[in-house]
Each structure stands twice: as structure tokens, then as C-alpha cells.
């Protein structure tokens, strides 16, 4: 099977079974070791114990199955969909499955991370193998008891039957099964026989969510816990000079005021600071109180004096410098095909456009928060984090503890969007807990969260195409971005390989503003730039924009270029589906449709946005989406991700605006920062390309094309191209045309 090439593992290496003292069987598996290409278990397999596993299936004597799902849940639905895959191959009925969040194991795992829409893609094969192996062990146990051949037995809905019509439940044979050899080469089900995968399973936490049960980090509480509010520098580039906390200490409920930062700086300067590089290097003032409110009030009452450590930056100067980079020659070439210079020199016509975006905050609805309790021999951390292992490592360095003495417990997360990849806030609370030696929870206010965050960097793209004899002969993409550039594979996305002379060049501007991954990093803005450009290019060529894409894809078919990430056939599939379902070829009067197609995060997507003019303003009414993500594990969850990704993409392209002046953000809460609301949310119609290919992720891929589809539709409605986000500030609706 082709997918096994990318997940080269041995079942013996990642599975272990044991009987439980309480009755029943426990199967442990190290999912993320199994997923890693050419996985090697870190220690001798014969000496493995259950501490080396990060995910478990427990089968009780009553036949109930508990699956401990290993991956962090940030709203992307893996706590439901990953166990569904196991249950499918295990042949149990979904109603007899209980799902629990797996306990964190900071040993020996490589991908207990939520990010990059990768959980399902990497988990697919090992999760199936795990379920199928457990199923085979149960069948083998039943066959041994009956004295028949295992091949005469069939398992279905948690029950094993043999050729003679005898029946045993899974629970009846768990004890024997646990002591059996782990079988190799188990047979996976034919996808056409799936009974759980492909059916809509509801969010496993739905009851807790609708009843307001404590699920999130902010809800976590232990006896004797105190609350902390952290005052950080108001501007990037500042550090603390002095402070006066006398008013704070008068506030009822305030227990103490301390400073932290020394240990964090030591960590920042260590050999392996990891994610902690997002930490601010200043001392911070911490108010400890007996309630969140008292802590927040206490923080407001501190009179702090800040000094300038590094220059305070402005978005206006970033704009100038990024454009200067685009005009200059300090580029790093990430992909170069043919001879772009010659193509431009020989062109009949050249089209060149520049696209610009602001910074963006993540704005998770649950503000950053974390719990810590530090004692002589243990460090306990609890809260919402996308990268628990990186956090444990950082805290072990921070507090000079052994990694084994640091435990991280994940809670449900009130949104991630990339922000919770970085554990700066959790490192802070560890330093606080170490200082006060009491269980403590740090809670950021919305203002703290928005103004001392990690941001999607401001980026500018310049796109240039050469046209010769009515054909595109050259294509050049230049990126100028704050703090870093597009990573590895992106230069090999469409239209790479479709145009003979093709080049991607990048340049970066260093800034003291912390930046990082934001839902669909780089592609969240790149898609808008490229797809808008391709639409304008089609207009210049007097070609239909859909046909132009299809013609370009035709040239990629059969390519020998193994760097190419997308499949021309699959992109063609989503394009044809969205054109059919959106009524793109039979437009309605007064409805302006913008088409685009995009591949990122291993999933192929095409979208058509419907815009109408109301009071001379463009309004996005509907977005039709066609998705090829292979097998759809949980359609109910998948559609939710797709709808959310599209509306999020439309919202941030339309309204997302975040800029700096003297190192300070220009918004600090939802009064000044506009997020999309229900009135502005388009209806989303989703269609899947049906196939039996291995599933790919959905947390990100529908977001990037949404802004592009909307800008193209707005151009049709108003006659104006938009080259800058947010659209609301940069579109000039004129009389309706078209």
C-alpha cells in the first residue's frame, strides 16, 4: 500500500498489549513514533513499558471500549475523528465507544501536536493498523478457545462468530487476547465496508459544551489555587525600568506583587530555547490575588516605567521597508525553473502587481491562560497548549529540573489558530509558580492577549507574469515578509510546473514584534495574492479564468518533477465540481461570482464566492466549496471545519486589520478590532470529491482561497481590483458594472 511508504513502521514497535488488574485489556500504541518516517523506537523494544505509549485502547470485560485520544483538541475535531478510525477497524459499534483525552507523555513521542492540518493525515495508517491489530488479537483469542482456525471467525459490532454459529463478545476474550503475540500483517478493511468512517459522528464533548461543564484551561481549579495577572511591556522593544505597586497592594484580594523574567531570559539564551523565543525578554510585574478580578484590577493599578531596549517600530516604516525589499535584490531563491529573465525580455506584455497585508492577532476566544504548581520534586502544568512536549522541555530548562519531573496535562482549548503552538504564557506561569510555591493560574485579559501576542506577520507579495503570443511564458513570485519567509514546500504549489519559466524569491525584514504561525501560515495571504493575480492575468489574456486554470493544469499532468506537491487531476476535480455546484456557468442577475482554486496542507479546494451589491456596498452572500480531502472520516465534523475555515477566511480578508505605532498595536479589544459576525457570515455550501484516497486535513485548507474568491467577486461587482487587506479599508465601490 502506497501510504505505508510514508509511515514505515512495525506493529511490534509501536503496539503493546496487557491485561488489566481490574479486568479487561489495554492496548498501548505510540502513534507519533509510528507516524514518523523511518520510525525508530527510542529504546530497546523488549524493554518497552506503557510509559512509552501516548495512546491507548481499553476494552473492558463488558465489551465497552475506551479510546484515549492522544492529540490536542483545539476545535478541529480530532478528539472525535481519530478514535473513529480505530473503532472502524476494531469493528465495534460507535455507541459503545467512550473517548477520553490521552494523558500527556513527554517521553519518546514526536508529534503530539495540533498544527498544520496533519493529525488525520499522519494518523490514518497507524490508527487503522492499531484497530485492526486489536481486532485480530480478539479473533485469535476466540479461535483458540473454540479450537477453530482464526480465518473461520468474523468480528462485527464487538462480537465474534465462527463457522458453527458460536458467539463470543469482545469482553469475553479480552483476558486471553491480552496475553497473545501481537500479530503482524493484519488485514485492513476495504473502504467500501466502512460503517463508522464516513458517517457523521457528533463532537464527543458536545454534552459538556452545551451544559457549560468545566472543560477548558480557564475552568481549571484546585484547592488553594491563586490567580496571577502579568503586566508586560505595552510596546515591543520596551523593558521594565521600575514600578510602584503601592496602590495595587491596597486592593482587596491582592496577595502579593512579584517580578519575573530572570529565568525566562536564561532560557532565551540557552542552547535550545525552542518555542520560548516568543517570550519577551523584559522583567514582568505579576499580581497574585485570590480571584481573577482582583488580579486584573491590581495589574491596572501598577504604575510602571518602561525604557526602550530596541527601537520601537511602526507599520508605516515596515511598509516602506518591505516595498524596498521587493524593489531590491536581497532575495533568496526558493525555486527556479527555465530562465525567467529571458521570458520577461522576450515578452509582448508583462503584468506586475503587488499585494499587501497587515499583521493579524489570533484572537482565540479563550484568552491565554495556564496553571502551574511547582514543588521540590515535581512541576505540574495544566492548560490549553498545542505543543505539550516543547513546553515540558522548555520548563525543565527554565527551572533546571529533569524532564521526567515535569508533567503537562492538556485541557480542551478555546481555539488555537496557531497561537497555542507557542508556550510563552505557560513558561511565565511556571516561573511564577516557582517563585510563590503555590498552585497558580495565570489569566490574560483580552487586552493582554491581543497586545502581547504572537502575530501573523505583515507580508507583501509582488507577482509578475510575461505574456508571449497570448500565452503565459514566465511567472515570478517575490515575497517580502516580517521575521521569516514561506517554508519548504510552498514554492512547489500551483502554478509551479505549469509555467516553463518560474521563480520564487523571498526576502525578510527582521523585527522585534513577535510573529508566528497563524491558521494556514503564509498561504492564508499568499492564496489571495496569487489567485487574484491569476484572475487579472486571465482578464489580460482575454481568457476564461476557469479555463485558464484547467489549461495550465493540463501541462502538469504526467510531470516527472517530484517536488510538485499538488495533483493536477485532483485540482481539476474540485474545479469542475465547484463550477457545476455554484452555477458559475449560468450566473444570476445581480450576483457576481469569484472563482479560485487552491492546494495547501495536502488538500485540494476550489471556491466560488457570490457577491451582491446592497446600498452600493458589496456583500458576500454565499461561498460554494468543493473539497478533495480523500476519504472523509467524519463528514459532520469535516463540514464544520470547512464552513468555519471559509467564514474565517472571508472575515479576516474583509476586516482583519492590526498595525503598530511606536511599537504598540493599534487595537486591544473587540471594540476596536473587528471580527466577522453572524450578519456578515456568508452561507457556505460544501461538496466533496468522492474517492478512496487516504484522508488529509481540513483545519486550514479552506481558509486561504476564501479571501481570493471574495476579492475576485468584488472586482466583478464593482470593477475594482483590491490589492490590500483588509478589503473594507481598501475597496472603492463604484457604480455597479458587469
Amino acid at each position, binding site marked *: 500500500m502506497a501510504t505505508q511508504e510514508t509511515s514505515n513502521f512495525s506493529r511490534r514497535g509501536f503496539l503493546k498489549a496487557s491485561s488489566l488488574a481490574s479486568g479487561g485489556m489495554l492496548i498501548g500504541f505510540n502513534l507519533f513514533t509510528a507516524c514518523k518516517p523511518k520510525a525508530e523506537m527510542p529504546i530497546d523494544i523488549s524493554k518497552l513499558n506503557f510509559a512509552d505509549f501516548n495512546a491507548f485502547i481499553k476494552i473492558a470485560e463488558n465489551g465497552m471500549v475506551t479510546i484515549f485520544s492522544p492529540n490536542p483538541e483545539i476545535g478541529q475535531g480530532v478528539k472525535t475523528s481519530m478514535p473513529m478510525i480505530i473503532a472502524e477497524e476494531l469493528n465495534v459499534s460507535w455507541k459503545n465507544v467512550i473517548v477520553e483525552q490521552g494523558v500527556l507523555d513527554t517521553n519518546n513521542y514526536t508529534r503530539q501536536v495540533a498544527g498544520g492540518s496533519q493529525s488525520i493525515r499522519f494518523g490514518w495508517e497507524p490508527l487503522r493498523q492499531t484497530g485492526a491489530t486489536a481486532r485480530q488479537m480478539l479473533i485469535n483469542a476466540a479461535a483458540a478457545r473454540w479450537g477453530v482456525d482464526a480465518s473461520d471467525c468474523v468480528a462485527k459490532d464487538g462480537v465474534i462468530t465462527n463457522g458453527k454459529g458460536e458467539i463470543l463478545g469482545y469482553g469475553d476474550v479480552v483476558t486471553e487476547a491480552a496475553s497473545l503475540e501481537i500479530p503482524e500483517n493484519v488485514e485492513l478493511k476495504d473502504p467500501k465496508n466502512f460503517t463508522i468512517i464516513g458517517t457523521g459522528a457528533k463532537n464527543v*464533548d458536545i454534552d459538556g459544551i452545551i451544559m457549560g461543564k468545566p472543560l477548558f484551561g480557564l475552568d481549571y481549579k484546585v484547592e488553594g489555587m491563586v490567580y496571577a495577572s502579568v503586566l508586560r511591556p505595552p510596546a515591543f522593544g520596551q523593558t521594565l525600568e521600575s514600578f510602584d505597586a503601592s496602590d495595587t497592594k491596597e486592593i482587596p*484580594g491582592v496577595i502579593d506583587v512579584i517580578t519575573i523574567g530572570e529565568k525566562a531570559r536564561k532560557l532565551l539564551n540557552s542552547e535550545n530555547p525552542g518555542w520560548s523565543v516568543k517570550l519577551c525578554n523584559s522583567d514582568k510585574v505579576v499580581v497574585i490575588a485570590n480571584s481573577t478580578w482582583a488580579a486584573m484590577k491590581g495589574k491596572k493599578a501598577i504604575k510602571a516605567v518602561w525604557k526602550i531596549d530596541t527601537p520601537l517600530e511602526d507599520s508605516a516604516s515596515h511598509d516602506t521597508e518591505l516595498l524596498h525589499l521587493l524593489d531590491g535584490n536581497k532575495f533568496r531563491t526558493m525555486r527556479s525553473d527555465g530562465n525567467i529573465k529571458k521570458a520577461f525580455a522576450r515578452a509582448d506584455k508583462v503584468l506586475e502587481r503587488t499585494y499587501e497585508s497587515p499583521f493579524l492577532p489570533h484572537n482565540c476566544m*479563550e484568552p491565554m491562560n495556564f496553571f502551574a504548581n511547582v514543588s521540590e520534586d515535581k512541576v505540574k502544568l495544566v492548560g490549553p497548549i498545542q505543543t505539550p512536549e516543547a513546553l515540558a522541555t522548555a520548563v525543565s530548562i527554565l527551572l533546571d529540573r529533569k524532564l521526567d519531573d515535569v508533567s503537562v496535562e492538556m485541557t480542551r482549548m478555546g481555539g488555537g489558530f496557531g497561537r497555542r503552538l507557542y508556550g510563552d504564557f505557560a513558561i511565565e506561569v511556571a516561573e511564577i509558580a516557582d517563585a510563590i510555591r503555590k498552585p497558580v493560574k495565570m489569566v490574560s485579559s483580552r487586552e493582554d492577549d491581543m497586545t502581547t501576542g504572537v502575530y501573523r506577520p505583515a507580508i507583501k507579495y509582488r507577482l509578475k507574469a510575461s505574456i508571449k503570443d497570448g500565452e503565459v511564458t514566465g511567472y515570478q513570485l517575490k515575497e517580502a515578509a516580517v521575521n521569516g519567509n514561506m517554508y519548504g514546500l510552498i514554492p512547489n504549489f500551483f502554478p509551479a510546473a505549469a509555467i516553463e519559466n518560474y521563480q520564487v524569491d523571498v526576502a525578510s525584514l527582521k523585527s522585534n514584534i513577535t510573529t508566528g504561525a497563524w491558521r494556514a501560515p503564509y498561504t492564508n495571504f499568499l492564496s489571495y495574492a496569487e489567485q487574484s493575480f491569476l484572475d487579472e492575468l486571465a482578464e489580460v489574456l482575454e481568457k476564461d479564468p476557469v479555463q485558464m486554470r484547467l489549461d495550465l493544469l493540463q501541462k502538469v499532468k504526467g510531470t516527472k518533477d517530484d517536488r510538485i506537491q499538488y495533483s493536477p487531476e485532483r485540482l481539476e476535480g474540485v474545479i469542475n465540481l465547484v463550477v457545476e455546484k455554484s452555477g458559475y456557468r449560468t450566473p444570476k442577475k445581480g450576483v457576481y461570482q469569484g472563482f479560485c482554486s487552491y492546494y495547501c496542507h495536502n488538500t485540494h479546494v476550489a471556491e466560488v464566492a457570490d457577491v451582491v451589491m446592497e446600498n452600493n456596498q458589496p456583500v458576500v452572500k454565499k461561498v460554494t466549496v468543493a473539497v478533495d480531502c480523500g476519504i472523509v472520516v467524519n463528514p459532520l465534523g469535516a463540514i464544520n471545519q470547512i464552513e468555519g475555515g471559509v467564514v474565517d477566511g472571508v472575515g479576516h480578508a474583509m476586516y482583519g486589520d492590526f498595525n503598530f505605532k511606536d511599537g504598540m498595536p493599534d487595537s486591544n479589544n473587540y471594540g476596536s478590532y473587528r471580527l466577522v459576525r453572524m450578519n456578515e457570515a456568508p452561507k457556505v455550501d460544501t461538496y466533496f470529491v468522492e474517492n478512496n484516497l487516504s484522508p488529509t486535513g481540513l483545519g486550514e485548507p479552506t481558509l486561504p482561497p476564501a479571501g481570493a474568491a471574495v476579492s475576485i467577486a468584488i472586482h466583478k461587482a464593482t470593477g475594482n481590483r483590491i490589492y490590500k487587506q483588509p478589503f473594507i479599508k481598501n475597496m472603492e465601490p463604484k457604480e455597479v458594472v458587469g
Partner: protein
Amino acid sequence: MATFNLSINGKSHTVDADSDTPLLWALRDHLEMVGTKYGCGIGQCGACTVHVDGNATRSCLLPISSLEGKEITTIEGLSLDGSHPVQQAWKEVDVPQCGYCQAGQIMTASAFLETNPKPTEEEIKAAMNGNICRCSAYNRIQKAVAIASEKIG
């Protein structure tokens, strides 16, 4: 510090806190009712919505000193078992992604349907516009409110 008597979910509770403490934090930190969520603290996002005498109200802006004699309902008291038609509709549609804003959404929707049990699509959108869902599950929220309206019948 002072003592305040609050009537929450049909029961009387005593809170010993500063008079300006918002109901949100009294619920969360003093009364162990954490279903009501903190989102912005300035009444802009709706995550902290509760009912005060039946009206959907932002608890982050409501000092406990102003609440004596008022009947407060939180998500924990909307029903004891998740059986309120709005909660049932939420489950039927499988609305939540991260789930953090959902209690506030449900409290806004339930108070709204009390005053307007048969709303139009536009009325639903207008009523729910004050509640931000960062995961943008707006299509499903809208659908769930419509289904809840049918259930209330």
C-alpha cells in the same frame, strides 16, 4: 469586601467580594460555576451572556452590587440535563468547534426565542450578531436557532 446575596438558578448564594466584582468573576471564581465564559470584559463578544430577570445580559459588565433581588440564570441552570430545546438543537446540529463561546450563544438564543419564538432568518442574524464565534460556526448557530424555534413550537 462586602457580602452580597444573589439568586442564581433558583437558589440563593452568598458572595463575599468587592462590590465592583462583575457577576462573571463571581460566578467563575467564587461560586464554581464556570460555564459562563470570559471573552473580552467589555461586553463586545457575548461569551459571558447570562439571563437577568429573563433578559440576555453581559455578565462581564455587571457588578454584583447591582444584582440583589434579581433572578439570574446561567448555562448551568438553563436545564439540569441539557434538555432545553436550544441545547437539544445545538446537539442535533453539532454546532461547536472549539466550543468556548457556545454557552453564551445558547443563553442569547434562549432569551431571544422567549421574546420571539418564531423568528425570521434576518431576525435570528440580528439577535445573534452580538455573539462572536471565532471558529466562525455561524452557519450552524443560525440553523440551530431555527431548529430550536421549531422545537419550542
